[in-house]
């Protein structure tokens, strides 16, 4: 049965003009082998073709009715659009202009009620603020109002003390500046004095050098470095002005050797 079904469909396609020449030739050969089945297929195709090609005794298209329907639809659509445009719910409520303040009495009523409620609520609560170790500010329900006067006095005292402290701070600042200036002057004086003292010491030392030199020339005795240090109290920093060299034949003393080499050995 399945093979017959496939064959019939293939033959129907042939009868509908489908298939390439090879396929059509093959189908024609099949149909020659079974002419009765082929005729049944031909009659079905021809019958359906005739049925589809038959005219139907229908009335012609009524354009007047059609245009009337079109105009009716357009009118309905236009009316709907106009209705939508004019409908307040479509475009929302009219744009409200800013109201003049106080024009609505209910706003005042609501405001007064809210204020009264707020005052009442605040009166039911006791607020405490600690302003110091000994000072506490209280207000609200159960607050000690006697403390307010004392508190005011204390606050005035504190303010006065703060003012005096401020003045004292300003005075202290001024004194600090004066002391600082004086300190600077003293530092300058000290520096100058130090410099003068150093100059005097250097001058005195030089004078001592000259005295010792004169003495050594006159006596012909030259002290050793240790003796010089012990005598002058300071370390020699520059070569001592040596006398001219003596003849080698003369016996040299230990002090003379020191003077020649500048070293002690």
């Amino acid at each position, binding site marked *: 049965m399945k093979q017959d079904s496939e064959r*019939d*469909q293939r033959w129907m396609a042939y009868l509908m003009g489908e298939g390439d020449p090879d396929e059509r030739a093959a189908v024609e050969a099949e149909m020659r082998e079974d002419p009765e089945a082929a005729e049944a297929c031909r009659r079905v195709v*021809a*019958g359906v073709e005739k049925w589809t090609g038959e005219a139907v005794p*229908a009335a012609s298209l*009524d354009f007047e009715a059609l245009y009337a329907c079109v105009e009716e639809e357009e009118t309905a659509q236009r009316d709907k659009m106009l209705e939508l445009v004019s409908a307040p719910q479509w475009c929302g409520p009219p744009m409200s202009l800013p109201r003049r303040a106080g024009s609505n009495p209910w706003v005042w009523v609501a405001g007064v009620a809210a204020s009264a409620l707020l005052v009442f609520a605040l009166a039911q609560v006791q607020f405490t603020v600690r302003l110091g170790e000994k000072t506490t500010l209280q207000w609200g329900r159960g607050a000690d109002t006697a403390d307010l006067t004392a508190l005011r006095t204390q606050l005035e005292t504190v303010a006065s003390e703060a003012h005096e402290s401020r003045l004292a701070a300003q005075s202290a600042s001024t004194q600090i500046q004066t002391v600082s200036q004086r300190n600077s002057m003293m530092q300058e004086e000290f520096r100058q004095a130090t410099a003068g003292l150093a100059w005097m010491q250097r001058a005195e030392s030089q004078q001592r050098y000259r005295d010792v030199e004169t003495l050594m020339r006159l006596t012909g005795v030259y002290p050793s470095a240790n003796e010089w240090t012990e005598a002058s109290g300071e370390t020699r920093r520059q070569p001592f002005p040596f006398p001219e060299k003596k003849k080698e034949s003369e016996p040299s003393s230990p002090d003379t050797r020191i003077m020649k080499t500048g070293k002690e050995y």
Partner: protein
Amino acid sequence: MAASFAVPTGTENASDRDLMTRFTKNRDRQAFEVLARRWDARVVAFLAKACGDLDSAEDLRQEVFLRVYRYADRYDPRYAFSTWLFRIACNVRKTWARGQVRRIETTGWEDGAEAMARMPDSAPGALERLTQGEARDRLRGEIARLEPDERELLLLRFEREFGFREIAEIQEIPETTVKSRFYRILEKLKVELGESDGGKGKVTS
């Protein structure tokens, strides 16, 4: 097939695309009427045979051309006008069929049975009345017993106007499905006729 009508000079030879373009751009009712008259007979015949009811077909034909008038700007000139037109016709027929089914579902049993009896699918006599001279034709009886979608497919294909590709566009299903369904319907008709003829397979046309 299509009856000849007297059409205004200058438009009778215009192509379907040109007429649609004129109507779309200028709302030229003359072009629309030429186009509608050109396709009216085919559309009403298609609807009558698919629905099995001439009165309904005439009403549906009016709806088809009303949609053409209303949605003309949606027509794509790259495609054939006939494809677009018959797609509208198929949609209108399906909408009509759904309306019939809904009416049956929402009424009582007896009313539903009466409505079912009036329906073309279950009333082959309605289609046979369309072809009064061949009421005894068993092939037409078998065609009348087909599903409306199947009759619609036969009509579209045998009109020679549409190939399987165009039918696939009209019915919005794959082309291979259209093809296999079409030959299955023909084969089914042949089998039914063979059984009704006692296996002789004799068909009168």
